[in-house]
């Protein structure tokens, strides 16, 4: 008897959670549909200039055409490749630099003001220099995607290194561990969750770097499509590119989030 009452209480609890979830989902759908509907209607009734702001039907028609003739796929592949590579290079390089800073504390103190300046600096402003140095091509754009996240990764991971409870190192040093052994056994594994969570931030940053890079030099990619659409006054193309970017940036973020929880589960 008692057990059935307990189960009913639990069922009610689950029911409440589910109905709350339903309300949230419905509202999310309503907002999306309303946005598209208002955009479409406003464009047709010329509340907004359809030449500048296009309309959902025109945008979706264009996306459909571009998918069918595979040109969208090419641009998308190009941009995705640059972004993924950029954010992996940025993260790995940031972790490596942070490790070097930890290894040589004096080096860390010396480089501190430079890191502060580099961090404060809007990295996309370095775009022209990077392009001049590495040539107008894939390499420059990947570098843009990487450079935007490398400094912040360095700073975040380095400060995480320093926040590891020193008593773990005391334990190791009492066994006679060297600094390198302390790094391998404590510092690195203890900060792995921090490193993984920088991935999530960096994936967003790399999109910025790559799109700006494509603005500047590319003749392929979604950033290029935006700037091309702007130049030839084809704002349906601009909007279509934005929609694609929004979808894939979100998917990538979700993917990294999944990767994060998997890594956390399997490494700690």
């Amino acid at each position, binding site marked *: 008897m008692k057990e059935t009452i307990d189960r009913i209480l639990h069922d009610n609890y689950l029911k409440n959670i589910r109905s709350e979830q339903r309300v949230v989902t419905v509202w999310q759908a309503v907002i999306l549909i309303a946005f598209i509907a208002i955009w479409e209607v406003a464009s047709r009734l010329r509340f907004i200039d359809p030449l500048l702001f296009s309309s959902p039907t025109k945008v979706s028609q264009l996306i459909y055409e571009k998918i069918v003739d595979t040109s969208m796929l090419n641009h998308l592949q190009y941009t995705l490749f640059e972004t993924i590579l950029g954010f992996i290079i940025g993260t790995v390089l940031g972790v490596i630099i942070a490790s070097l800073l930890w290894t040589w504390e004096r080096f860390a103190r010396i480089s501190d003001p430079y890191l502060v300046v580099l961090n404060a600096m809007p990295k996309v402003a370095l775009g022209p220099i990077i392009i001049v140095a590495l040539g107008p091509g894939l390499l420059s754009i990947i570098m843009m995607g990487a450079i935007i996240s490398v400094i912040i990764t360095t700073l975040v991971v380095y400060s995480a290194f320093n926040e590891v409870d020193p008593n773990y190192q005391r334990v190791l040093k009492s066994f006679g561990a060297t600094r390198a052994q302390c790094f391998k056994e404590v510092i690195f594994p203890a900060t792995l969750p921090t490193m993984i969570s920088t991935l999530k931030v960096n994936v967003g940053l790399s999109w910025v770097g790559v799109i700006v890079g494509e603005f500047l030099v590319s003749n392929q990619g979604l950033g290029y499509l935006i700037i091309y659409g702007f130049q030839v006054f084809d704002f349906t193309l601009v909007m279509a590119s934005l929609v694609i970017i929004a979808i894939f940036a979100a998917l990538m973020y979700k993917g990294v989030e999944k990767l994060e929880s998997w890594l956390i589960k399997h490494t*700690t």
Partner: protein
Amino acid sequence: MAFLTLDNVSHYYFSTTGYTKALENISLSIEEGEFVSIIGPSGCGKSTILSIIARLMEQTEGQIKLKNEALTDSSLNIGYMLQQDYLFPWKTVMDNILLGPKINEQITDQTKIRARQLLADVNLSDTEDDFPSELSGGMRQRIALVRTLITNPEILLFDEPFSALDYVTKLKLENLVAKLMKSYNKTAILVTHDLGEAISMSDRIFLMESAPGRIAKTFVVPEELRNEAPFFVRRHPKYQPIFDEIWNHLSDDMSDENEGDD
């Protein structure tokens, strides 16, 4: 011949705003197989002594000798146990225990057998594949003890290892540690603020005073208490007299401090 000797050891802590003299002319010697305790008010430099013996820091002045030879970084195999277990949460119990051998690149089948033996000694045989988070505080501290013992240290340094535990667990662990130290004939130094714990576990007690940290007095625990398990020492007729004697010195110290404040 004394096993470990501290000869006029002093230690300063420096900071940008000045310095503190943590230890002043500490001289003491410990025999092999002896269990000594250091008690005193917080901030008297008890833990600093352990850190210096463990070579985690260098004393500012004075000498430390191991069997009449100057102590160097590698000459002493020590086991250091802290207030908390500091088991590595991402490692299994077995991997935690094998940390010391791993650091010294001495993992053999024999070390693993020894690890299992020690685990059995502390009644935790079936936990070797568990993660520390799955164990209770007392179990974790026992694992930390095994991790300390596996390298077969010549001297064990205990920095309030029982103070974070509940009372029952603490008493049980005291018994266990005392028994293990006796059976392996280990030299040990215990830092504690629990007078009863110091009396029930050790052969000699150093009472320290603070600012600067100094040894105020040394007490020898009566012969009859030394071989009893800590739990029974507390009920022994000889327990209360020495407790009172040390207590009087402790409270003298406190009244001194109060006068100083006026």
